[in-house]
């Protein structure tokens, strides 16, 4: 299985997420993550999809079927371009008073932020690629991870050209 990050520009209209998610389920595509948000244009939403496929042909189907949706303006495979990929994760870790300094140390090494502290836990915020997030989670495992929330990967191409002009 290979993973690809797709940037999907869609009309910012009601129902568009239903159309995109309905297509993914109908065609039995494997989706690792999906996130959506506003863009520099009011009437355009950007949906970031990480898809995992067995073959080029399967990837081609994901892209062409998505492109066929009426409210999809453009689909670009950013994994094929030079691009920056990031994901945001919030991790709630069990932390006794004795362990807290250790955990903060670990967070600093990963350039993560401590965003909440209470007597029994800390919440760590980390932005990065998938491997960095996985590595931090592995280290924090020994303290006891209570909860994780991840955004899924989003990506931008390098250089001045935006996806809509690709």
């Amino acid at each position, binding site marked *: 299985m290979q993973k690809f990050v797709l940037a999907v520009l*869609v009309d910012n209209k*009601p*129902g568009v997420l*239903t159309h995109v998610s309905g297509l993914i*389920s109908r065609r039995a595509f494997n989706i690792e993550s999906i996130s959506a948000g506003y863009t520099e244009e009011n009437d355009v939403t950007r949906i970031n999809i990480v898809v995992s496929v067995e073959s080029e*042909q399967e990837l*081609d189907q994901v892209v062409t079927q998505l*492109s066929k949706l009426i409210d999809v*303006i453009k689909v670009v495979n950013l994994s094929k371009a030079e691009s920056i990929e990031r994901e945001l994760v919030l991790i709630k870790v069990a932390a006794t008073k004795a362990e807290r300094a250790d955990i903060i140390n670990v967070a600093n090494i990963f350039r993560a932020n401590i965003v909440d502290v209470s007597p029994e836990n800390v919440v760590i915020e980390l932005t990065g690629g998938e491997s960095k997030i996985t590595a931090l989670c592995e280290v924090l495992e020994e303290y006891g991870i209570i909860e994780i929330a991840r955004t899924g990967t989003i990506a931008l191409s390098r250089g001045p050209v935006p996806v809509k002009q690709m």
Partner: protein
Amino acid sequence: MKMNGAQAVLESLKREGVDVVFGYPGGAVLTLYDAVYRNQFRHVLTGHEQGAIHAADGYARATGKVGVVFATSGPGATNLVTGIATACTDSVPLVCFTGQVANPYIGKDSFQEADVFGITTPITKHNYLVKDVHDLPRVIKEAFFIARTGRPGPVVIDVAKDVFDTEFDYEYPETVHLRGYSGDYTGDEAEIDEVVAALQQAKKPLLFVGGGVNGSDTSPILRDIADLLGAPVTCTLLGLGTVRADAPGFLGFAGMHGSYAANMCIQSCDLLLCIGMRFSDRVTGKVSEFAPHAKIVHFELDRAEINKNVQADYRVLGDLRWSLPLLAEKLKAAGDDFAGRFRSWRDYTAKIAAEHPFTYQPDGEAIKPGALIMKLSELADEDTIAVTDVGQHQMWAAQFFKTYKPRHFLTSGGQGTMGYGLPASMGAKIGCPDSHVILFTGDGSIMMCCQEFATIADNDLDIKVVVLHNSILGMVGQWQRLFYHHHYSQSELKGHTDFVKLAEAMGVPGARLTKASELDTRLPELMAHKGPMLIDVMIPEEEDVLPMVPGGKRLDQMVLGGND
């Protein structure tokens, strides 16, 4: 112009050139139906919403125009689902207006509320939920544009009840602005040049024509290309009628129950020109060994169809209305004597076809389906529109009925929807009142929408309904016979239903044929009868549709019938 949402719908339909709506009223569309009443708009009331949607589908397939349906919220709309899916798979342009509960009631599990937008998302080309009357004209304009352009398909417009009631300043947009959809499919000419070059190299080319040629009305140009090339031609089930049944080089349709010659030639040709088709599993057989010796050319409008099921060696992406005329022009300009070069190959394929026609074994006074349909084909004129339901009779109709014109063989191909036939035949007759319409159906299929006999009688639609009555769900029975040890599990239909009386009860006269000799003595007169007629034809129970490519087998691994 001040008007309410309901009037705006009717006004927009007029501007789109809609001349008839198929539908069924209900609570959420009362205001819409009031506008139908006030406008005296032509509306065909069916016995069931499923009848309305299949009728609109038959109308659209026969005429090429967009079929329009009205239904109410909740069950009214969900009753359309089978018909919407049927139209979507076969690329039929429809616009369906469904009532939704009023805005304040949406999401509250209100009376007759169903999430029609969510339900119809995977079975439509596009769909809308309209909650604000000001969106209505734009949405309707877009819906018709989307339904009829590109690869056609059904569009659902779910309209909140209060939108129909709201007065606003109506203005119908002149143009459509969709950032992700242009409806324009002009492709790259160089792709056609490559096909011409491939044809110049080819020794054994075969044309394989799909429903896209019917849907794009490019049959005349396709026929020119077939003549120009002098290559043999086959088609898919939905491609029937694109070439004349008696055209030289025509091998009949291909696939699971297709002709021996068509399937064998697909497996032995060296260049397969696939035009407006999507390589359904019913037409490819074992897909990894489909056309093993051929370079595959795919003329296709929908980019997602290219390489979906079968890898194309050459593709021509674009509207057939753009690509086929260009291909014809370039073939002429090539100065190659294609027809001369391909003559011996075509003669060879014609010989196979002549040696292996669709056939049946006569058996005394038993009415064999092949004999019945050949007789009906003989009695029918070239302008007769044949409609089918789904099952054995559908395949026999495809095998034995001769279709000469595009949009003259209407059948549910992709979904195989039993119950499609009777209402679809109504739509065809309403759309083409000057054509004879004949429905081939079975004793299973006919029961699925038999309430529409009432609609046929009440609208005096001259349709000849031929029931191939074998007292079994024939195709299910055939598979049970072949692959499930003759276990006729729930497929036998040995009840007490009398189809002649059933039709008569709703106002359609009926007759029953039981002996082969009646095909000559009674059938011509029944077919000549003015007005609708049900003809219940008793056929043998254990008759297989042959040839047959069993599931997962190669096209040349057919089970043959007759003396083979």
